[in-house]
Protein backbone atom coordinates (compact mmCIF):
# COMPACT_ATOMS: atom_id res chain seq x y z
CA UNK A 1 0.00 0.00 0.00
CA UNK A 2 2.97 2.29 0.62
CA UNK A 3 3.41 2.61 -3.12
CA UNK A 4 -0.17 3.76 -3.61
CA UNK A 5 -1.25 6.03 -0.76
CA UNK A 6 0.10 9.53 -1.17
CA UNK A 7 1.26 8.83 -4.71
CA UNK A 8 -0.24 10.00 -7.97
CA UNK A 9 -1.24 6.80 -9.80
CA UNK A 10 -2.47 7.37 -13.37
CA UNK A 11 -5.57 5.42 -14.30
CA UNK A 12 -4.67 2.36 -16.34
CA UNK A 13 -6.43 3.68 -19.44
CA UNK A 14 -5.63 7.38 -19.13
CA UNK A 15 -2.78 7.47 -21.67
CA UNK A 16 -4.97 5.67 -24.19
CA UNK A 17 -7.62 8.35 -23.60
CA UNK A 18 -5.25 11.31 -24.05
CA UNK A 19 -3.69 9.85 -27.19
CA UNK A 20 -7.02 8.90 -28.76
CA UNK A 21 -6.34 5.16 -28.78
CA UNK A 22 -9.28 4.01 -26.63
CA UNK A 23 -11.67 2.11 -28.89
CA UNK A 24 -15.29 2.91 -28.05
CA UNK A 25 -18.10 1.06 -29.81
CA UNK A 26 -18.59 3.80 -32.40
CA UNK A 27 -14.90 3.42 -33.29
CA UNK A 28 -15.53 -0.14 -34.51
CA UNK A 29 -15.67 -0.38 -38.29
CA UNK A 30 -16.27 -3.87 -39.67
CA UNK A 31 -16.14 -4.82 -43.37
CA UNK A 32 -19.53 -4.44 -45.03
CA UNK A 33 -21.02 -2.84 -41.94
CA UNK A 34 -24.56 -1.44 -42.20
CA UNK A 35 -25.99 1.57 -40.39
CA UNK A 36 -29.37 1.79 -38.68
CA UNK A 37 -31.97 4.56 -38.61
CA UNK A 38 -35.55 4.24 -37.43
CA UNK A 39 -38.96 5.46 -38.48
CA UNK A 40 -41.09 7.22 -35.88
CA UNK A 41 -44.37 9.08 -35.72
CA UNK A 42 -44.67 12.70 -34.54
CA UNK A 43 -47.04 12.10 -31.60
CA UNK A 44 -46.52 10.64 -28.10
CA UNK A 45 -49.55 8.34 -28.00
CA UNK A 46 -51.16 6.51 -30.89
CA UNK A 47 -52.71 3.29 -32.06
CA UNK A 48 -50.78 1.81 -34.95
CA UNK A 49 -53.14 0.96 -37.82
CA UNK A 50 -50.77 -0.11 -40.56
CA UNK A 51 -47.07 -0.20 -41.33
CA UNK A 52 -45.95 -0.19 -44.96
CA UNK A 53 -42.24 -0.66 -45.60
CA UNK A 54 -42.42 -1.55 -49.31
CA UNK A 55 -41.01 1.73 -50.62
CA UNK A 56 -38.26 1.79 -47.99
CA UNK A 57 -37.13 -1.71 -48.95
CA UNK A 58 -36.77 -0.63 -52.58
CA UNK A 59 -34.26 2.16 -51.83
CA UNK A 60 -30.87 1.25 -53.32
CA UNK A 61 -28.42 0.43 -50.56
CA UNK A 62 -31.02 -0.79 -48.07
CA UNK A 63 -30.15 -4.26 -46.83
CA UNK A 64 -32.85 -4.89 -44.26
CA UNK A 65 -36.03 -3.40 -42.84
CA UNK A 66 -37.62 -4.76 -39.66
CA UNK A 67 -40.86 -4.24 -37.78
CA UNK A 68 -42.35 -5.96 -34.73
CA UNK A 69 -43.04 -8.96 -37.01
CA UNK A 70 -39.31 -9.66 -37.17
CA UNK A 71 -38.84 -9.78 -33.40
CA UNK A 72 -39.21 -13.37 -32.09
CA UNK A 73 -40.28 -12.36 -28.55
CA UNK A 74 -41.15 -8.70 -28.82
CA UNK A 75 -41.95 -7.84 -25.19
CA UNK A 76 -39.30 -7.51 -22.52
CA UNK A 77 -38.74 -5.93 -19.11
CA UNK A 78 -37.03 -6.50 -15.79
CA UNK A 79 -40.21 -7.08 -13.76
CA UNK A 80 -43.09 -6.70 -16.17
CA UNK A 81 -42.61 -7.67 -19.80
CA UNK A 82 -44.55 -4.68 -21.15
CA UNK A 83 -42.01 -3.02 -23.44
CA UNK A 84 -41.87 -3.94 -27.14
CA UNK A 85 -38.59 -3.89 -29.03
CA UNK A 86 -40.63 -2.40 -31.87
CA UNK A 87 -44.28 -1.58 -31.12
CA UNK A 88 -47.04 -3.59 -32.77
CA UNK A 89 -50.20 -1.92 -31.44
CA UNK A 90 -49.39 1.33 -29.64
CA UNK A 91 -46.78 4.08 -29.62
CA UNK A 92 -46.50 5.30 -26.05
CA UNK A 93 -43.90 8.06 -26.09
CA UNK A 94 -42.60 10.64 -28.53
CA UNK A 95 -39.81 9.32 -30.73
CA UNK A 96 -40.42 5.63 -30.02
CA UNK A 97 -38.85 3.73 -32.94
CA UNK A 98 -41.43 1.76 -34.94
CA UNK A 99 -39.47 0.50 -37.94
CA UNK A 100 -35.70 -0.03 -38.21
CA UNK A 101 -33.74 0.18 -41.45
CA UNK A 102 -30.19 -1.04 -42.09
CA UNK A 103 -28.41 0.49 -45.07
CA UNK A 104 -24.93 0.96 -46.47
CA UNK A 105 -24.63 4.37 -44.85
CA UNK A 106 -26.63 6.69 -42.59
CA UNK A 107 -27.79 8.96 -45.45
CA UNK A 108 -29.31 5.98 -47.27
CA UNK A 109 -30.91 4.74 -44.07
CA UNK A 110 -32.48 8.18 -43.52
CA UNK A 111 -33.75 8.20 -47.10
CA UNK A 112 -35.42 4.81 -46.57
CA UNK A 113 -36.87 5.83 -43.20
CA UNK A 114 -38.59 8.78 -44.92
CA UNK A 115 -40.32 6.28 -47.23
CA UNK A 116 -41.77 4.16 -44.41
CA UNK A 117 -45.51 4.72 -44.14
CA UNK A 118 -47.07 4.37 -40.69
CA UNK A 119 -50.83 4.87 -40.43
CA UNK A 120 -51.95 5.67 -36.92
CA UNK A 121 -54.82 6.99 -34.87
CA UNK A 122 -53.71 9.67 -32.45
CA UNK A 123 -54.72 9.04 -28.84
CA UNK A 124 -54.90 11.49 -25.94
CA UNK A 125 -51.65 11.38 -24.01
CA UNK A 126 -51.16 11.77 -20.27
CA UNK A 127 -47.95 13.29 -18.93
CA UNK A 128 -48.60 14.01 -15.27
CA UNK A 129 -48.49 10.93 -13.02
CA UNK A 130 -51.13 12.27 -10.60
CA UNK A 131 -53.44 12.91 -13.53
CA UNK A 132 -52.65 9.43 -14.85
CA UNK A 133 -53.83 7.91 -11.54
CA UNK A 134 -57.29 9.47 -11.80
CA UNK A 135 -60.12 7.20 -12.91
CA UNK A 136 -60.95 7.96 -16.51
CA UNK A 137 -57.45 9.23 -17.37
CA UNK A 138 -56.10 8.23 -20.80
CA UNK A 139 -54.76 4.69 -20.49
CA UNK A 140 -51.06 4.35 -21.28
CA UNK A 141 -51.49 0.59 -20.97
CA UNK A 142 -54.71 -1.36 -21.24
CA UNK A 143 -55.71 -2.22 -17.70
CA UNK A 144 -54.63 0.97 -15.99
CA UNK A 145 -51.75 3.32 -15.37
CA UNK A 146 -50.68 2.01 -11.96
CA UNK A 147 -48.08 -0.77 -11.93
CA UNK A 148 -48.82 -3.63 -9.55
CA UNK A 149 -46.87 -4.93 -6.58
CA UNK A 150 -47.97 -8.51 -6.07
CA UNK A 151 -51.51 -7.56 -7.08
CA UNK A 152 -51.52 -4.32 -5.05
CA UNK A 153 -51.49 -0.80 -6.47
CA UNK A 154 -48.83 0.41 -4.06
CA UNK A 155 -45.61 -0.76 -2.51
CA UNK A 156 -46.66 -0.61 1.15
CA UNK A 157 -44.26 -0.40 4.08
CA UNK A 158 -45.35 -0.10 7.71
CA UNK A 159 -43.21 0.27 10.82
CA UNK A 160 -44.58 0.91 14.33
CA UNK A 161 -47.81 2.90 14.71
CA UNK A 162 -47.71 6.11 12.72
CA UNK A 163 -50.93 7.66 14.14
CA UNK A 164 -49.75 7.04 17.71
CA UNK A 165 -46.43 8.62 16.70
CA UNK A 166 -48.16 11.75 15.41
CA UNK A 167 -50.19 11.95 18.66
CA UNK A 168 -46.94 11.91 20.64
CA UNK A 169 -45.31 14.60 18.49
CA UNK A 170 -44.96 18.27 19.51
CA UNK A 171 -44.97 19.44 15.90
CA UNK A 172 -46.23 18.01 12.63
CA UNK A 173 -45.11 19.33 9.25
CA UNK A 174 -46.49 18.35 5.88
CA UNK A 175 -45.11 19.07 2.40
CA UNK A 176 -45.45 17.96 -1.17
CA UNK A 177 -42.23 17.81 -3.16
CA UNK A 178 -41.70 17.37 -6.88
CA UNK A 179 -38.45 16.58 -8.65
CA UNK A 180 -37.66 16.96 -12.34
CA UNK A 181 -36.71 14.38 -14.93
CA UNK A 182 -32.94 14.15 -15.50
CA UNK A 183 -31.14 13.03 -18.64
CA UNK A 184 -27.76 11.37 -18.05
CA UNK A 185 -26.26 13.24 -21.04
CA UNK A 186 -23.11 11.13 -21.26
CA UNK A 187 -20.91 12.40 -24.07
CA UNK A 188 -20.88 9.05 -25.87
CA UNK A 189 -24.32 8.40 -27.34
CA UNK A 190 -25.74 4.88 -27.19
CA UNK A 191 -24.14 2.68 -29.81
CA UNK A 192 -23.80 -0.99 -30.52
CA UNK A 193 -22.44 -3.19 -33.26
CA UNK A 194 -23.79 -6.69 -33.85
CA UNK A 195 -22.56 -9.41 -36.16
CA UNK A 196 -23.87 -12.90 -36.77
CA UNK A 197 -21.66 -15.75 -37.90
CA UNK A 198 -22.63 -18.54 -40.30
CA UNK A 199 -24.04 -20.67 -37.48
CA UNK A 200 -26.27 -17.80 -36.37
CA UNK A 201 -24.25 -17.05 -33.25
CA UNK A 202 -24.18 -13.36 -32.47
CA UNK A 203 -21.49 -11.06 -31.12
CA UNK A 204 -22.59 -7.66 -29.82
CA UNK A 205 -20.18 -4.88 -28.99
CA UNK A 206 -21.78 -2.45 -26.59
CA UNK A 207 -20.87 0.03 -23.86
CA UNK A 208 -23.31 -1.71 -21.52
CA UNK A 209 -23.04 -1.19 -17.78
CA UNK A 210 -24.75 -4.56 -17.25
CA UNK A 211 -23.22 -7.07 -19.64
CA UNK A 212 -24.81 -10.27 -18.32
CA UNK A 213 -28.21 -8.60 -18.00
CA UNK A 214 -28.01 -7.56 -21.65
CA UNK A 215 -27.05 -11.09 -22.66
CA UNK A 216 -29.98 -12.53 -20.71
CA UNK A 217 -32.51 -10.11 -22.21
CA UNK A 218 -31.21 -10.39 -25.77
CA UNK A 219 -31.40 -14.20 -25.61
CA UNK A 220 -34.96 -13.88 -24.37
CA UNK A 221 -35.99 -11.51 -27.17
CA UNK A 222 -34.30 -13.64 -29.83
CA UNK A 223 -35.44 -16.92 -28.27
CA UNK A 224 -31.98 -18.46 -28.44
CA UNK A 225 -29.74 -20.25 -25.90
CA UNK A 226 -27.45 -18.05 -23.87
CA UNK A 227 -24.30 -19.66 -25.28
CA UNK A 228 -25.12 -18.32 -28.75
CA UNK A 229 -24.93 -14.65 -27.81
CA UNK A 230 -21.60 -13.07 -26.90
CA UNK A 231 -21.53 -9.58 -25.46
CA UNK A 232 -18.27 -7.68 -25.71
CA UNK A 233 -18.32 -4.94 -23.12
CA UNK A 234 -16.51 -1.95 -24.57
CA UNK A 235 -15.17 1.20 -22.91
CA UNK A 236 -18.07 3.36 -21.80
CA UNK A 237 -17.99 7.05 -22.69
CA UNK A 238 -20.01 7.88 -19.60
CA UNK A 239 -22.90 5.81 -18.27
CA UNK A 240 -24.16 7.11 -14.92
CA UNK A 241 -26.78 4.35 -14.91
CA UNK A 242 -28.12 5.28 -18.33
CA UNK A 243 -26.46 2.35 -20.05
CA UNK A 244 -27.99 -0.27 -17.76
CA UNK A 245 -30.81 -1.16 -20.14
CA UNK A 246 -30.59 -2.54 -23.66
CA UNK A 247 -31.19 0.31 -26.08
CA UNK A 248 -29.74 -0.29 -29.54
CA UNK A 249 -28.76 -3.94 -29.06
CA UNK A 250 -31.99 -5.80 -29.87
CA UNK A 251 -32.45 -4.05 -33.21
CA UNK A 252 -28.79 -4.49 -34.19
CA UNK A 253 -28.89 -8.21 -33.34
CA UNK A 254 -32.06 -8.84 -35.33
CA UNK A 255 -30.83 -6.87 -38.35
CA UNK A 256 -27.45 -8.63 -38.22
CA UNK A 257 -29.22 -12.00 -38.34
CA UNK A 258 -31.54 -10.86 -41.12
CA UNK A 259 -28.87 -9.29 -43.36
CA UNK A 260 -25.86 -11.48 -42.51
CA UNK A 261 -23.78 -8.32 -42.16
CA UNK A 262 -22.38 -6.37 -39.23
CA UNK A 263 -24.83 -3.70 -38.11
CA UNK A 264 -24.17 -0.49 -36.18
CA UNK A 265 -26.79 1.73 -34.56
CA UNK A 266 -25.58 4.93 -33.02
CA UNK A 267 -28.07 7.34 -31.50
CA UNK A 268 -27.98 11.03 -32.27
CA UNK A 269 -27.94 13.53 -29.43
CA UNK A 270 -31.59 14.28 -30.22
CA UNK A 271 -32.44 10.59 -29.79
CA UNK A 272 -30.54 10.57 -26.50
CA UNK A 273 -32.80 13.31 -25.17
CA UNK A 274 -35.98 11.87 -26.66
CA UNK A 275 -35.79 8.12 -26.20
CA UNK A 276 -33.03 7.17 -23.78
CA UNK A 277 -33.94 6.39 -20.16
CA UNK A 278 -33.97 9.23 -17.63
CA UNK A 279 -34.14 9.67 -13.88
CA UNK A 280 -37.81 9.64 -12.95
CA UNK A 281 -39.66 12.80 -11.97
CA UNK A 282 -41.20 11.97 -8.61
CA UNK A 283 -43.91 13.41 -6.39
CA UNK A 284 -43.46 12.98 -2.64
CA UNK A 285 -46.03 13.91 -0.03
CA UNK A 286 -44.33 13.76 3.33
CA UNK A 287 -45.86 14.33 6.79
CA UNK A 288 -43.41 14.25 9.69
CA UNK A 289 -43.95 14.41 13.46
CA UNK A 290 -41.16 15.42 15.84
CA UNK A 291 -40.47 16.53 19.41
CA UNK A 292 -39.42 20.03 20.60
CA UNK A 293 -35.86 18.74 20.93
CA UNK A 294 -35.82 17.71 17.26
CA UNK A 295 -36.31 13.95 17.78
CA UNK A 296 -38.17 12.40 14.85
CA UNK A 297 -41.20 10.36 15.91
CA UNK A 298 -43.37 9.50 12.93
CA UNK A 299 -43.56 9.90 9.17
CA UNK A 300 -46.24 9.22 6.59
CA UNK A 301 -45.24 9.20 2.93
CA UNK A 302 -47.18 8.94 -0.27
CA UNK A 303 -44.69 8.50 -3.07
CA UNK A 304 -45.44 8.61 -6.79
CA UNK A 305 -42.76 7.57 -9.22
CA UNK A 306 -43.34 8.47 -12.87
CA UNK A 307 -42.00 5.41 -14.70
CA UNK A 308 -42.77 6.74 -18.17
CA UNK A 309 -44.20 4.57 -20.91
CA UNK A 310 -42.93 1.23 -19.58
CA UNK A 311 -42.14 -0.35 -16.24
CA UNK A 312 -38.58 -1.50 -16.94
CA UNK A 313 -36.73 -1.13 -13.61
CA UNK A 314 -39.54 0.99 -12.09
CA UNK A 315 -40.77 -1.69 -9.70
CA UNK A 316 -37.22 -2.33 -8.53
CA UNK A 317 -36.57 1.40 -8.11
CA UNK A 318 -39.58 1.71 -5.82
CA UNK A 319 -38.54 -1.33 -3.77
CA UNK A 320 -35.03 0.05 -3.46
CA UNK A 321 -36.01 3.52 -2.31
CA UNK A 322 -38.29 2.32 0.49
CA UNK A 323 -35.38 1.10 2.60
CA UNK A 324 -33.69 4.49 2.36
CA UNK A 325 -36.69 6.80 2.28
CA UNK A 326 -35.73 8.40 5.61
CA UNK A 327 -32.09 8.78 4.68
CA UNK A 328 -29.65 8.18 7.54
CA UNK A 329 -32.26 9.08 10.20
CA UNK A 330 -34.12 6.96 12.73
CA UNK A 331 -37.91 7.21 12.64
CA UNK A 332 -39.68 4.54 14.72
CA UNK A 333 -43.13 4.92 13.14
CA UNK A 334 -43.39 4.89 9.35
CA UNK A 335 -46.27 4.53 6.91
CA UNK A 336 -45.27 4.42 3.25
CA UNK A 337 -47.31 3.94 0.09
CA UNK A 338 -45.33 4.05 -3.15
CA UNK A 339 -46.91 4.07 -6.60
CA UNK A 340 -45.21 3.40 -9.92
CA UNK A 341 -47.27 5.18 -12.57
CA UNK A 342 -47.22 5.02 -16.35
CA UNK A 343 -47.25 8.22 -18.44
CA UNK A 344 -46.67 8.92 -22.15
CA UNK A 345 -43.05 9.85 -21.62
CA UNK A 346 -39.73 8.17 -22.22
CA UNK A 347 -38.88 5.29 -19.90
CA UNK A 348 -37.17 6.01 -16.61
CA UNK A 349 -34.28 4.01 -15.26
CA UNK A 350 -31.21 3.96 -13.06
CA UNK A 351 -29.20 7.13 -12.57
CA UNK A 352 -26.52 7.76 -9.94
CA UNK A 353 -27.89 6.80 -6.51
CA UNK A 354 -30.70 5.07 -8.31
CA UNK A 355 -34.13 6.03 -7.03
CA UNK A 356 -32.86 7.35 -3.69
CA UNK A 357 -31.67 10.76 -4.80
CA UNK A 358 -35.16 12.19 -5.31
CA UNK A 359 -36.27 11.45 -1.75
CA UNK A 360 -33.06 12.93 -0.31
CA UNK A 361 -34.22 16.36 -1.50
CA UNK A 362 -37.54 15.96 0.35
CA UNK A 363 -36.01 14.41 3.43
CA UNK A 364 -33.20 16.93 3.89
CA UNK A 365 -35.48 19.89 3.15
CA UNK A 366 -37.70 18.77 6.02
CA UNK A 367 -34.65 18.41 8.29
CA UNK A 368 -33.81 22.07 7.58
CA UNK A 369 -37.40 23.10 8.35
CA UNK A 370 -37.31 21.10 11.59
CA UNK A 371 -34.14 22.97 12.57
CA UNK A 372 -35.88 26.29 11.90
CA UNK A 373 -38.97 25.34 13.93
CA UNK A 374 -37.03 23.99 16.90
CA UNK A 375 -34.36 26.68 16.75
CA UNK A 376 -31.66 24.01 16.76
CA UNK A 377 -28.50 24.00 14.65
CA UNK A 378 -29.24 22.01 11.44
CA UNK A 379 -26.32 19.70 12.27
CA UNK A 380 -27.64 19.08 15.79
CA UNK A 381 -31.03 18.01 14.44
CA UNK A 382 -29.32 15.53 12.19
CA UNK A 383 -26.89 14.29 14.85
CA UNK A 384 -29.79 13.64 17.22
CA UNK A 385 -31.57 11.38 14.73
CA UNK A 386 -28.69 9.53 13.09
CA UNK A 387 -29.05 5.79 12.63
CA UNK A 388 -26.87 3.58 14.77
CA UNK A 389 -26.18 -0.14 15.20
CA UNK A 390 -29.35 -2.03 16.12
CA UNK A 391 -31.77 0.47 14.55
CA UNK A 392 -34.47 -0.86 12.22
CA UNK A 393 -35.12 0.50 8.74
CA UNK A 394 -38.76 0.88 7.56
CA UNK A 395 -38.21 -2.35 5.61
CA UNK A 396 -37.35 -4.20 8.88
CA UNK A 397 -33.64 -4.50 8.20
CA UNK A 398 -31.63 -4.39 11.45
CA UNK A 399 -28.53 -2.28 10.93
CA UNK A 400 -24.99 -3.14 11.89
CA UNK A 401 -21.63 -1.42 11.36
CA UNK A 402 -23.24 2.00 10.87
CA UNK A 403 -20.57 4.66 10.29
CA UNK A 404 -22.68 7.71 9.58
CA UNK A 405 -21.94 9.50 12.88
CA UNK A 406 -18.18 9.29 12.38
CA UNK A 407 -18.67 10.44 8.79
CA UNK A 408 -20.72 13.47 9.76
CA UNK A 409 -18.27 14.34 12.55
CA UNK A 410 -15.43 14.26 10.03
CA UNK A 411 -17.43 16.52 7.69
CA UNK A 412 -18.12 18.99 10.52
CA UNK A 413 -14.42 19.12 11.32
CA UNK A 414 -13.18 19.33 7.74
CA UNK A 415 -15.70 22.00 6.77
CA UNK A 416 -15.14 24.10 9.89
CA UNK A 417 -18.93 24.18 10.39
CA UNK A 418 -18.83 25.67 13.87
CA UNK A 419 -16.46 28.44 12.81
CA UNK A 420 -18.83 29.76 10.15
Amino acid at each position, binding site marked *: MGKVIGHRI*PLYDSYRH*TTGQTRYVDDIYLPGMLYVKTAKIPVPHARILNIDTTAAERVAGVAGVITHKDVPNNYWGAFVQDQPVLPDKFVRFLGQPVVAVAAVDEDTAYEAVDKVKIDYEELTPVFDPEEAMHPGAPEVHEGGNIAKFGGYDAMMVRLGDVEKGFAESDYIIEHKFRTAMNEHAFLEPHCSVAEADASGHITIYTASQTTSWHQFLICGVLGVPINTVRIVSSPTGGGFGGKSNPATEFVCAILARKTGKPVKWRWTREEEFLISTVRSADIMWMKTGFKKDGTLVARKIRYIQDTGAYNDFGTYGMMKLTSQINGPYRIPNVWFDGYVVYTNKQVTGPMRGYSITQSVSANETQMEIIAEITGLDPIEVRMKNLLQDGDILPTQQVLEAVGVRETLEAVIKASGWYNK
Partner: protein
Amino acid sequence: MEVRFVLNGTEVKVDVKPTAILTDILRDKLGVTSVKKGCETGDCGACAVLLDGELVNSCLVLAPTVAGKSVTTVEGLIVNGEIDIIQKRLAEYHGTQCGYCTPGMVMAIKALLNKNPKPSEAEIRRAISGNLCRCTGYQKIVEAVQSITA
Protein backbone atom coordinates in the same frame (compact mmCIF):
# COMPACT_ATOMS: atom_id res chain seq x y z
CA MET B 1 -15.37 15.46 -55.10
CA GLU B 2 -11.70 15.12 -54.29
CA VAL B 3 -10.23 17.06 -51.41
CA ARG B 4 -6.54 17.29 -50.53
CA PHE B 5 -5.35 18.55 -47.18
CA VAL B 6 -2.58 17.98 -44.66
CA LEU B 7 -3.51 15.66 -41.80
CA ASN B 8 -1.06 15.60 -38.92
CA GLY B 9 1.80 16.61 -41.20
CA THR B 10 1.03 14.23 -44.07
CA GLU B 11 -0.83 15.15 -47.23
CA VAL B 12 -4.02 13.13 -47.73
CA LYS B 13 -6.51 12.89 -50.59
CA VAL B 14 -10.13 11.86 -50.05
CA ASP B 15 -13.24 11.58 -52.13
CA VAL B 16 -16.06 13.35 -50.30
CA LYS B 17 -19.69 14.33 -50.77
CA PRO B 18 -20.02 18.14 -50.87
CA THR B 19 -22.24 17.94 -47.77
CA ALA B 20 -19.89 15.75 -45.73
CA ILE B 21 -18.61 17.11 -42.44
CA LEU B 22 -14.96 16.97 -41.46
CA THR B 23 -15.70 14.70 -38.46
CA ASP B 24 -17.07 11.96 -40.72
CA ILE B 25 -14.23 12.27 -43.22
CA LEU B 26 -11.63 11.94 -40.46
CA ARG B 27 -13.40 9.00 -38.81
CA ASP B 28 -14.96 7.06 -41.68
CA LYS B 29 -12.46 7.70 -44.49
CA LEU B 30 -9.18 8.30 -42.71
CA GLY B 31 -9.58 6.14 -39.60
CA VAL B 32 -8.92 8.98 -37.15
CA THR B 33 -11.40 7.77 -34.52
CA SER B 34 -9.97 9.98 -31.77
CA VAL B 35 -12.30 12.64 -33.18
CA LYS B 36 -15.50 11.86 -31.28
CA LYS B 37 -19.13 12.42 -32.16
CA GLY B 38 -20.93 13.70 -29.10
CA CYS B 39 -23.63 15.96 -30.53
CA GLU B 40 -22.85 16.84 -34.17
CA THR B 41 -24.30 20.28 -33.50
CA GLY B 42 -21.21 22.13 -32.29
CA ASP B 43 -22.16 22.08 -28.62
CA CYS B 44 -19.93 19.50 -26.91
CA GLY B 45 -16.42 19.93 -28.33
CA ALA B 46 -15.68 16.18 -28.48
CA CYS B 47 -14.80 16.52 -32.18
CA ALA B 48 -12.50 19.53 -31.76
CA VAL B 49 -9.40 19.66 -33.98
CA LEU B 50 -6.94 22.33 -35.06
CA LEU B 51 -7.55 23.76 -38.53
CA ASP B 52 -4.49 25.76 -39.60
CA GLY B 53 -3.78 26.11 -35.88
CA GLU B 54 -7.26 27.38 -34.96
CA LEU B 55 -9.53 25.32 -32.72
CA VAL B 56 -12.69 24.23 -34.54
CA ASN B 57 -15.52 21.81 -33.92
CA SER B 58 -15.01 19.49 -36.88
CA CYS B 59 -18.74 18.68 -36.99
CA LEU B 60 -19.37 22.27 -38.10
CA VAL B 61 -16.73 22.21 -40.83
CA LEU B 62 -17.81 21.11 -44.30
CA ALA B 63 -15.17 18.73 -45.61
CA PRO B 64 -14.57 20.50 -48.96
CA THR B 65 -13.61 23.70 -47.12
CA VAL B 66 -10.47 22.12 -45.65
CA ALA B 67 -8.86 21.80 -49.10
CA GLY B 68 -5.28 22.99 -48.91
CA LYS B 69 -5.42 23.44 -45.15
CA SER B 70 -3.78 21.64 -42.27
CA VAL B 71 -5.72 19.53 -39.76
CA THR B 72 -4.23 18.42 -36.44
CA THR B 73 -5.72 15.79 -34.09
CA VAL B 74 -4.33 14.22 -30.91
CA GLU B 75 -2.46 11.68 -33.03
CA GLY B 76 -0.55 14.58 -34.56
CA LEU B 77 0.76 15.68 -31.17
CA ILE B 78 2.83 12.52 -30.85
CA VAL B 79 6.29 13.31 -32.26
CA ASN B 80 8.86 10.51 -32.73
CA GLY B 81 6.89 8.32 -30.32
CA GLU B 82 6.90 11.04 -27.64
CA ILE B 83 3.51 12.17 -26.44
CA ASP B 84 2.79 15.84 -25.90
CA ILE B 85 3.16 17.28 -22.39
CA ILE B 86 -0.63 17.97 -22.39
CA GLN B 87 -1.37 14.29 -23.06
CA LYS B 88 1.09 13.30 -20.35
CA ARG B 89 -0.13 15.66 -17.66
CA LEU B 90 -3.85 15.03 -18.26
CA ALA B 91 -3.14 11.34 -17.67
CA GLU B 92 -0.95 11.96 -14.63
CA TYR B 93 -3.31 14.45 -12.99
CA HIS B 94 -6.43 12.33 -13.47
CA GLY B 95 -7.73 14.71 -16.09
CA THR B 96 -9.47 11.79 -17.79
CA GLN B 97 -12.40 9.73 -16.57
CA CYS B 98 -14.52 8.10 -19.27
CA GLY B 99 -12.17 9.63 -21.82
CA TYR B 100 -14.74 10.58 -24.43
CA CYS B 101 -14.18 14.33 -24.16
CA THR B 102 -10.43 13.94 -23.75
CA PRO B 103 -9.13 14.23 -27.35
CA GLY B 104 -11.19 17.40 -27.91
CA MET B 105 -10.07 18.71 -24.53
CA VAL B 106 -6.40 18.07 -25.43
CA MET B 107 -6.81 20.05 -28.66
CA ALA B 108 -8.53 22.96 -26.86
CA ILE B 109 -5.63 23.12 -24.40
CA LYS B 110 -3.12 22.88 -27.25
CA ALA B 111 -4.79 25.82 -29.01
CA LEU B 112 -4.65 27.80 -25.76
CA LEU B 113 -1.00 27.12 -24.97
CA ASN B 114 0.08 27.83 -28.56
CA LYS B 115 -1.24 31.36 -28.18
CA ASN B 116 -0.82 31.93 -24.48
CA PRO B 117 1.90 29.86 -22.79
CA LYS B 118 1.16 31.35 -19.33
CA PRO B 119 -2.62 31.41 -19.01
CA SER B 120 -4.35 32.34 -15.75
CA GLU B 121 -6.81 29.89 -14.21
CA ALA B 122 -9.67 31.96 -15.61
CA GLU B 123 -8.10 31.83 -19.07
CA ILE B 124 -7.72 28.04 -18.82
CA ARG B 125 -11.36 27.64 -17.82
CA ARG B 126 -12.46 29.94 -20.62
CA ALA B 127 -10.38 27.99 -23.15
CA ILE B 128 -12.07 24.68 -22.30
CA SER B 129 -15.55 26.16 -21.89
CA GLY B 130 -16.56 24.75 -25.27
CA ASN B 131 -15.61 21.22 -24.25
CA LEU B 132 -18.18 19.41 -22.13
CA CYS B 133 -16.97 16.82 -19.62
CA ARG B 134 -20.05 15.07 -18.26
CA CYS B 135 -17.94 13.17 -15.71
CA THR B 136 -17.35 16.69 -14.34
CA GLY B 137 -13.57 16.37 -14.29
CA TYR B 138 -12.87 20.05 -14.92
CA GLN B 139 -10.93 20.68 -11.71
CA LYS B 140 -8.37 17.97 -12.46
CA ILE B 141 -8.11 19.13 -16.06
CA VAL B 142 -7.36 22.69 -14.91
CA GLU B 143 -4.78 21.39 -12.42
CA ALA B 144 -3.12 19.37 -15.18
CA VAL B 145 -2.80 22.49 -17.35
CA GLN B 146 -1.52 24.53 -14.40
CA SER B 147 1.16 21.90 -13.81
CA ILE B 148 2.45 22.66 -17.31
CA THR B 149 2.29 26.43 -17.10
CA ALA B 150 3.44 26.92 -13.51
